[in-house]
């Protein structure tokens, strides 16, 4: 029984990181209809920035702030200079370009910091059942989800962003700077992605550290429904729990294939994710 409780608590804590990554994917998907495969690369930049800043200043929280800033800037830059010129032409090409970006950034990080592992601190102590670092993961992701909800629901910026995503032409006619809104969406998403990286990175970081995290993140986004931020959070926690149970009871090698099975089963029943609403279409 204690084993089960431990697995549940662990699953929730790791699930928080998956939820954050899924959230960042969903924001970008909502804004640009694009699955951003470069998301782990942006998180990687953020985490290595934190590693360097913490190494120089000795303060974890300065590094944390630097990571979020780096994520924000990197996301905006990528949207403006890489994605926008290409997304105009073809959807598939834009996806492939994010893949290219992933390869480039992983390689560059390997060039600068080396392919070997570096030790990376947790925010708080991670010892014991439901350690402070796990609480921090859950609380921070919950806070981000609420802030995001408030942003979309109550602020003019959020309204403009929704308008730009929902109907770019009409939004442009009513004076919304659609391009700027897309850049803002990418910046916010990458900032949340950076948070996911800070939660999922420890105890060791290497250029490939987020591959598996990203897989679970995209799983969470897909089963939650790519169009639904709350679905992403629920999906992230579910995947965290599921993977924790599978690793604990059946063996960690089977975790990824279980994720595949979950995706296939969930999507066979609900092709647009758990929290999707059925779409009506006029014929």
């Amino acid at each position: 029984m204690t084993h089960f409780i431990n697995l549940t608590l662990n699953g929730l804590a790791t699930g928080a990181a998956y939820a954050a990554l899924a959230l960042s994917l969903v924001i970008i998907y909502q804004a640009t209809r694009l699955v951003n495969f470069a998301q782990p690369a942006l998180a990687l930049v953020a985490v290595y920035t934190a590693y360097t800043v913490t190494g120089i200043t000795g303060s974890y929280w300065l590094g944390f702030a630097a990571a979020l800033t780096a994520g924000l800037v990197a996301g905006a830059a990528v949207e403006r200079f890489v994605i926008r010129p290409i997304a105009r032409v073809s959807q598939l090409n834009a996806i492939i370009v994010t893949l290219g970006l992933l390869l480039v950034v992983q390689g560059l990080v390997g060039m600068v910091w080396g392919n070997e592992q570096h030790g990376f601190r947790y925010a708080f102590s991670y010892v014991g059942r439901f350690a402070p670092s796990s609480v921090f993961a859950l609380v921070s992701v919950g806070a981000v989800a609420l802030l995001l909800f408030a942003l979309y629901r109550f602020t003019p910026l959020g309204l403009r962003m929704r308008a730009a995503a929902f109907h770019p032409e009409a939004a442009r006619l009513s004076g919304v700077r659609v391009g700027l809104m897309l850049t803002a969406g990418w910046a916010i998403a990458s900032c949340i992605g950076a948070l996911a990286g800070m939660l999922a990175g420890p105890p060791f970081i290497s250029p490939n550290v987020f591959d598996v995290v990203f897989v679970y993140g995209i799983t969470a986004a897909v089963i939650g429904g790519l169009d639904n931020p709350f679905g992403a959070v629920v999906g992230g926690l579910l995947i965290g729990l599921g993977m924790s149970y599978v690793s604990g009871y059946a063996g960690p090698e089977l975790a990824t294939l279980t994720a595949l099975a979950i995706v296939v089963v969930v999507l066979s029943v609900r092709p647009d994710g758990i929290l999707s609403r059925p779409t009506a279409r006029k014929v």
Partner: protein
Amino acid sequence: MSSPTGKSAERATGPGAHAAGSPDTPRGRSRRTLPSPLRHLLFAALGLAAVTGLLLVTGDLTALRLAAVGYTMLAVAGLQLLVGGSGQVSLGHGAFMMIGAYTMTLLVLHQPMLPIAANLLIIVAVSAVAGIAVGAATARLHGPYLAGATLILAVGLPGLTHRYHEFLGGSNGLNIRTAGAPPFLQGVFTDSEWKALVVWTTVVIGLAVLATISSGRLGRRMRSLRDDETAAAMAGVPVGKTKVVAFVIASAAGGLGGGLQAYVLGTATPSSFTLVLSLTLLAALVFGGIGSLWGALWAAVTVVYLQIWATDLARSLELGRNVENNLPVVFFGIVLILVLRFWPLGLHGALTRLGARLRPPTTR
């Protein structure tokens, strides 16, 4: 180099896939009088002859590289049929290469007496069965959902080698020794050249099959699905079945490519079938040009030679180990982004446009 093979492919997919130039030149029409499988086999034979000639005048190292181009090309061509043909984006093609490679090593280890042709046929069967399983499970998924599911497959499958450590060899993988040139050809071909020849024989046959499928009814049905699923269903195209069939054919081609890779390199390890491989295959396809099998050729040449050049470059500049290990990937990524930025149809699209511009305007 092996342009005739590619040319057959181009004839096959050219008109339907993208609006390239004018396919109805008199030359093209006279070729079209041959039935399509025969025409593709003819071009396959020409391609094989060209590769054989190339092998005879170059050395062992080039033979191995040519073999790498061959099996990569076959895998990418399968993906071309799936992504460019039926419009399903798969990020898990490397998983099928892995299935093929492990099938090959297991067959050589446990059934050493089987001839290579039998091994390859078994590989096609095994990876087709795997393709049926995955394709049937994912037939209802579309767009980014399918991409996500196949991505998980690519990451998850190598984990099985750790789970079944005794049988699949864990992270060290499985090593085999494959036979070289048969005794009566010992003086003509070295072992590497013989292997490259076996690879290319299989590859041109595989490409001929793919080109025939692509130019036939099945290919037309796939393209109709890609363009508009609802309209295709209204016109009587069985949507689910066609999707699964496309997936199975792509899996078989990928598996065969992986099997040939294991045959040439003599090894199958989980670390050679990472997510990066799957992503590279898809990226290379779009880079080469998604609309035609020609794209697969450019893609394979680029993947193999860019890697070699970048490694040589890093070594000659003496930039240190970190840079040297990562330069090929970075180089590939940058070239990929630039090509897609300036030539959205990939290298083949750029070449077609160049060709159309050079052609005298009277033939239009």
